[in-house]
Structure formats: C-alpha cells, structure tokens
C-alpha cells in the first residue's frame, strides 16, 4: 500500500485539485501583532477546508535574526536529517538550530521539524548571489533524499503548515506566541492529495509565499513554459507553478507586480483595444510574449514577500476575494465574514474586480487596482 502521508499527489494525477479558504492581514506601518486574529479569521471559514491541510506565513517574526536565512525543514526520518545536516554545515554557517517548539494538537502524523538560522559560506557562494545560492540548495535538499523538505527559507519570516484544520495547525506550532506585521493563512480542501505535510499551503521559496485557492486549467502549458527557464515542477501542484512564475517575472526579469498581474490575469482583447495606444501596445505585447503564463481557470492567490502583500484573482473572477481596510490594517479574505469577525467596523470594504491586484505595501500604504 502506498504511504499517502509521505508524498504529494500519490496517485500521480496531473495536478492537485483543491479548494480553499484564504486570509491575509497586514499592518501597513510594519507594527507587529500576534497570530490571534488571523487564526480566528481562518477558523471562521472552517467549512471551506476539510482538515487535510492548513498553514500560515508570518513576516517579521524573527527580529533577532532578521538578516539570516531561517530554514524550517520537515524530516520523515532521522537518517534524512543526518544527511541534510551534513549538507547544511558544509554549505552554511549555522548560527542557531533547534527543534521547532510544538505541542499536542489535532493534527495528523507530524514529521520531525527543525529550524535553522543560516548564512551562506562566502567561500562557497563565489560570484553567485545569495538568493540564487539558497534557491539551488533548497532544490537540492528537496530532491536529494526524498525525505527532507525545506518548507520555509526566507529572512525574518516563517511558514508553519501541516495536515489538519488551520486552527489545529496553529495550536500545534504555538502560533499565538509569534508576532508579525503580516500574516497569510490557508485552509485546504484537497481532492487528491490526502495528507502530505509539505503539500499544505503556503508554498515558499526565499521570502516569497503563495496561498492559493483554485485549479489552474492552463497548468499544462504554464509548467512547460517555466521548464524552458530551468524550473523543475516536481510537486505537480499548480501552486508551485504560480510561485515559479512570480520568481521568473519579478525576481529574475524585474517586472513589477502591477505588470505581473496583467500577465497572469490579462485583460480581454476587447478591453485592450479600448486603451490608449501606448498602453494597448504594451498590453498586447504582454499577451503575445507571456501568453503561456496566463493562468486560466479559477484562482485566488495571496502572494507575500518582505513588505508586500498582493491579492489577485483570475480575470473573470471564478474564486472569491474580498479586500478591506481599517486604520493601518489591510485585509484580504475569501469571505467578508472572516474580516468582520476580527474587525467589525471597517473603513472600506470592496470586492476587487477579476484580474485587478490589491497591493499592500509597507509605508506607501497603497492599495491600488489599475495600471492602464
């Protein structure tokens, strides 16, 4: 019998089919707050998940190590840990390491979890940028033993996820003890990945995280396009493809989130035709060039990285997303009820249109919709 707890997509289906709840909360001034409200909010959308995956990404939680890479790694056995530890000490200066503090909670078959604070060894990185070095090592650890999985690898942030309802996962990780300025949360309803801890959301690489609700019908071509740029889509999830698309377009090609949102969820040709000539030219070129990265089919995503949180839906909005502001806080949620639960009186609440990003940025306090 297959051990369904240790692999993603054990049936080898072409991709993961799931539906979900999403919640994001950010203090635009960068003030840190506890996980209490995000947990309550995501728990309020309990029925959108089925207990087979929950997770959180928190930014600003490790101020004492804010310039070091925080690796959080799942191990399926001690042997994998031994092997990975050897690799880590060979490639990195390990400033601190510990077993992640956990407690009894209603979660299923937790793996061994370890947290490290690291710096790349300068003698090893040579001319490589630190981020590229980290990316390469994470890919290596994830594929080498098959039993070790880096589920968090950014600076001053961490991902906490597992198999259970999100509120149970939060309890398991003592999440209420952490304080961050930005939280994204996810409750999951997978239909074909019964319960691998690594398969829960958020997905992370460096300080980028993605929580995702939906099924990407264009997955087949999105994946083949990214493979041309050297990405290996090993996990057979559409969320992974989303994460790599952000990495390619924003980190490697330097495009802004406003432009990236027009690649993933472009306007219709009729809308492009109605634009000013110079915008028309640009938007047409985006579709001509990046058509293979159009994410077709229903999705809502909340993408976060240092200082920025972005909500985006597919261009005809087949999955829900509500945005709201209250004082210095920006909220993104699958359901308005979850926002109202933690902040009953809001300054502004709105339903972003399909394909129009909601962007929360530290300081600048911009929650913008349009670029053209």
């Amino acid at each position, binding site marked *: 019998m297959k051990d369904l707890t240790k692999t993603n997509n054990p049936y080898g289906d072409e991709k993961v089919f799931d539906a979900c709840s999403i919640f994001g909360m950010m203090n635009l001034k960068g003030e840190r707050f506890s996980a209490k409200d995000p947990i309550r909010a995501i728990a309020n959308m309990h029925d959108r998940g089925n207990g087979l995956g929950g997770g959180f990404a928190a930014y600003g939680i490790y101020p004492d190590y804010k310039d070091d890479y925080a690796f959080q790694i799942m191990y399926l056995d001690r042997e994998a840990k031994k092997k990975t530890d050897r690799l880590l000490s060979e490639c990195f200066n390990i400033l601190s390491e510990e077993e992640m503090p956990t407690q009894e909670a209603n979660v299923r078959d937790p793996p061994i979890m370890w947290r490290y604070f690291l710096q790349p060894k300068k003698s090893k990185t040579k001319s490589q940028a630190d981020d590229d070095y980290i990316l390469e090592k994470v890919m290596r650890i994830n594929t080498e033993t098959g039993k070790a999985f880096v589920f968090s690898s950014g600076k001053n942030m961490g991902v906490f996820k597992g198999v259970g309802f999100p509120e149970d996962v939060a309890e398991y990780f003592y999440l209420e003890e952490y304080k961050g300025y930005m939280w994204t949360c996810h409750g999951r309803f997978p239909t074909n990945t019964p319960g691998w801890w690594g398969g829960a959301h958020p997905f992370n690489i460096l300080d980028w995280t993605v929580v995702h609700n939906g099924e990407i019908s264009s997955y087949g071509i999105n994946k083949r396009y990214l493979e041309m740029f050297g990405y290996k889509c090993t996990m057979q999830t559409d969320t992974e493809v989303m994460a790599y698309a952000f990495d390619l377009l924003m980190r490697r090609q330097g495009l802004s989130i406003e432009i990236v949102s027009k690649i993933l969820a472009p306007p219709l040709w009729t809308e492009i035709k109605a634009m000013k000539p110079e915008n028309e030219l640009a938007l047409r*070129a985006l579709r001509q*060039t990046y058509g293979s990265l159009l994410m077709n089919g229903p999705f809502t995503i909340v993408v976060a990285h240092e200082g920025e949180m972005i909500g985006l839906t597919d261009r005809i909005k087949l999955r829900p997303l509500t945005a709201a502001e209250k004082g210095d806080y920006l909220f993104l949620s699958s359901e308005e009820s979850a926002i109202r639960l933690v902040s009953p009186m809001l300054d502004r609440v709105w339903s972003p249109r399909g394909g129009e990003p909601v962007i929360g940025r530290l300081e600048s306090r911009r929650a913008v919709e349009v670029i053209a």
Partner: protein
Amino acid sequence: MKSYVTPEYIVERDQDRCIRCKVCVNQCSYDTHYYDEEDDILHSRNENCVNCQRCATFCPTQAITIRENPNHYRSNANWTQEAITSIKKQAETGGVVLTGMGCDKPNLTYWDRLLLNASQVTNPSIDPLREAMELRTYIGSKPDKLELEMEEGNGVVLKTKLAPQLQLETPIMFSAMSYGSISLNVHKSLARAASEAGTFYNTGEGGLEKSLYKYGDHVIVQVASGRFGVHPDYLDAGAAIEIKIGQGAKPGIGGHLPGEKVSEEISRTRMIPLGTDALSPAPQHDIYSIEDLRQLIYALKEATDYTKPVFVKIAAVHNSAAIASGIVRAGADAVVLDGVRGGTGAAPRIIRDNVGIPIEMALAAVDQRLRDEGIRNQASVIAAGGIKSSADVLKAIALGADAVYIATAALVSLGCTVCQKCYTGKCPWGIATTDLWLTKRINPDIGAKRLAGLLRGWSLEIMEMMGGMGINAIESVRGNRLLLRGVGLTDKELEILGVRMVGE
C-alpha cells in the same frame, strides 16, 4: 492495346426519374454521360467516371446513383484491388501512377485517438455564448522577456521592440495552393474569406494575380523552388512570406504544372512563357544546406525591410525535430510542418502514400525539441496536413501548434468531394482546373461565403470545446498537453506525443 483495367464505378440511372434534361452531360468534364437522340435516352461510359458526384448532385430528379464496381478481383489481403490495378495501369502506360489530394490509407491518423478534457465540479466550465472566449493568435517570433516602464500619467509603456507578427482572429489559415493548380476564382474566394474572417490565405508557388493585391493584408506569399511570380512587388504585397522547402504529400520531390494549364493569366502571374511547362525543382537550388536557408531568410527580410515574418515550410519527415531546430536558429519566424496526409494537386501515388510521417508525431516532437532547447518562443509552429475538423484543430494546438493550415477542408467547403483526380485538370467542381468552362462553376461571392461559413463554424465549435474545459483564451490551450488523453496507443506513441493514457 486493350486495357485490362476495369471501371472503378458503375453509373446507374433510374430511367423512370430521368427527364432527359442533359444536366449530367453538361456537368461531367470526363465525358461520362451521353444522350442518344434516336432512342431519347441517356447512357453512361462507366470507365470515365471518377465518382466526383457532380452529376448526382445536380441531377434535378435524383435519377443518378454511382456505385463502386462490384466486380472485384479475388479477395486477397496482399494483392488488393488497388495493387493489381496499379500494376496493370503501369504496364499499359509505362509511367508513374499519379494522384491528387492527401494519402488515403488508414491507420495514419492520430487525431481520432486523442480525446479532449472537460471541467466537472472542481472548476467551472464557461459558456461561450455568454462570456468572452478568445481565439486571437499572433504568429511570429516572441522575445523571452519584455522591458516595460510605468510612466507617470501614461500607465505602462513598452520599451522592447517586437518582431513582426500576424494577427489571426481564429487560429486557422488557408494553406498554400498555387494559382494554376486551382483557379483564380478559388483564389478570390480564399482571399475574400480570409479577409472577412481575420485570417490569412497562402498563394502557393504560383504568384499572386494582380487583381488580388488588394487583399495583401491577408495574404501569405510563397517562395518555392521554381520562384514563379516572385518579384519585389509580390513580396511587398503579402503580410508574410513563406519559403517552401517541402510538402507533406510529396516530400523531397518537385512539381510540374503541364503547359496546357499555363494560360495567358497564369503565364503572366508566374512570369513564364504561355503554354510552357512550369517545373518546380525538387530542392531549392540555392539551398543545399541550413546555412543557405539562413541566407534566403535574411535576403527576404532585407528585401522587405524586416517588416514581415518569414515562415519556412517543410514536410514532416523522420528528423523533423532537428530540422525545425535548425530552421528556428536560421532565423525563421515560423516553422510550418506538413504531415503525410497533406494534400496536393498532383503527386506520384507511391510518394504520397509512403513518404513522410503523420503531422501529430512531427508536431509533438518539434514542439518538445524547441522547448528542450529553450528556443520555442523564437518561432511559431504551424501544423498542416490532414486536419478535418475543429477538434483536430484544437488537438493540434494542445499538442503545441500556434495555428493550423487547412487546404483540403477549404476545397471541400467549395464542393470538392476528394475524388483525387486534381492532376487531370478537369475538376468538374471547377476547383482544380484552369479551363474557363469549368472555373466559372465557382462564383467567388458564394465561394467566399462558404469558406467563411466553415471558418465561423469551426471557430464556434472550438469555443464550445474550450469553454467546456474552463479555458477562455486559446493561449492556455497551446502546448497544454494535459488537456489530451490517448486511447489505443502504445507507451512509445504516448511518450512521443507527450500525452497520458485515458484513465490516467
């Protein structure tokens, strides 16, 4: 010499229904029917009949039935009727057996063994009658990345200059058929339909007749080994230029338009003397290697100031993937692959039925190879040869094509019944002929309407299928092989197609 070849078809006439109107006599260009004045009765010469169904279609009382001749040689799985008949014909003529249209052998079609997906529960299907469904396609070289800037007050502005692109409102174009192999009225019909539908028609190698220059924005001008009708105005007239290296129906061999078909207009358009044979050499004699191809590509780009995409068309053969990679690196903006089932006006049957490979395999291999080499964005891929329905179009796109070319299907919409006798020049439907008595059977107004109707019908069907899959833009189908599953295919076939088995 007494011919031992027996008639293929029997013409039956219901004398009770026949009203002696002689429509059949007038419609048949093969002299099959004749009227016996003395007995006031119509008769048929069965040996002349090609079963084109022109007489049966136009008979006002439906008095005519064409049947296959029930007289067959003794059944034999090896020595088939066709094998025996071919040998007898050759013995009597000492020549090559000619034919027209595409390969008619079974088991070379993969489209029918590929099935499309549809959405159920986990994502919603989309109703194209109520929501946007986008088929627009751009053919041409695309960059790997764009430079854009956000300008205050101006929004997003493009900084990269894109290579020239063809804009298609539906991913279906009319494939190359030369003026000479088909009539001017058919060319007019194709040009008007392409203009109306927002797509393109390909001149083939016979040049572009003067009166069609006004449709230039929807014309792809071909440059083939005979260089017929190629001059600066011709290159300038088209929206794109296609270098023809090969054709699916006859890979590796040239063409021959007999002198009797070279009428005054054709001689002018092709720039050859009246009544002389138009011989297209097998290779292009200035292209004996890939570096020579690069020179021709850039010569054509120079000649047209880099304003038009240049396509290179090859027949699908064993090494198509490597050849296509070379073509892309040589600077082509699009690679056209023409499969073994692609049609022709005339080809030796032995070549048509035995040389080349199915388009599905060639397309899958080429698309994957270009991706493996990281150069798929540099050129579009166009599939041709054996596309019979809108489902075939969508399957081709899911395998990796940017667009498809159709030709046989276009002619069928004009009346063609695929009788395979194009090479006789006597097409009773007025399509593959230059005989003015026959060519007037195609009225360009009606022809354009029928062709545009075909494009519209297929486009609507494509939208329905896409909507069913929950996809509202054709670029999300392109190369998305997860939308396909194979049935009745071996592991190796599935591997080359890059497609999973049904149930997987």
